[in-house]
């Protein structure tokens, strides 16, 4: 009876601990998702900036090619 009571309490503690861990994992997952979303948006913004500034960036490359083509 004594051992059974202890086992019961142990199961309850285990359940509570597991629930706490699950909550912590959910919070961490949300944090990760938010961070990933933020970083992805940042990458896409940089991509837009890079694509918009390609005209000036590729100018030197075009000049180099034209020199090689002697035109």
């Amino acid at each position, binding site marked *: 009876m004594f*051992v059974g009571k202890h086992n019961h309490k142990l199961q309850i503690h285990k359940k509570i601990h597991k629930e706490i861990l699950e909550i912590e994992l959910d919070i961490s997952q949300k944090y990760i998702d938010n961070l990933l979303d933020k*970083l992805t948006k940042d990458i896409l913004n940089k991509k837009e900036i890079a694509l918009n500034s390609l005209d000036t960036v590729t100018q030197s490359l075009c000049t180099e090619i034209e020199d090689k083509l002697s035109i």
Partner: protein
Amino acid sequence: MENFDQIFTLLAEHEGISLNLDILETGLLNILALLAILIYVGRDFLGSLLETRQAEIITAVQDAEERLNEANKRLAEAQKQLTQADVIFAQIKEETLNTKKLLLKADSDQSRKDLSTRFSRAIAALRSKELQVYSEIKKQIITLVLKRTVIRAQETFGPKPRAIALINETINKLEGELL
């Protein structure tokens, strides 16, 4: 009731209660003789009665002592069992605590692994996205440069067939270098 009334009447006639010192009149000798006879006759009977009573009392005391000893033994046994129960209780408590620690540690380790996996997935997704964007930008740069070069070449060389062939050959070479 009449006798009761007569007592008060006699008391009133003799003017109060007084001590009668006349031995013969009070019958003291008779009483003493009666007592002596009683003691003489009843000595054996009283002796045996008292001996029986003494034996009973001794037996009762011995029984009480035996019961006391038995009770002391049972008390000692109970205390011993209590001590053993305390030891077992302490052992069970310690074992339970250890089991609890192990179970909670296992859960914590599992959660740590889950978290690590989730971070790894997030990092992999981010790197994949970076590579995709990098590839798109690279592709866009190549396309833009080639278009510009083609336009510039067409403007320079015109529609001459040899020039077109030369341009295509050069562009193919450049494309291979760029990619």
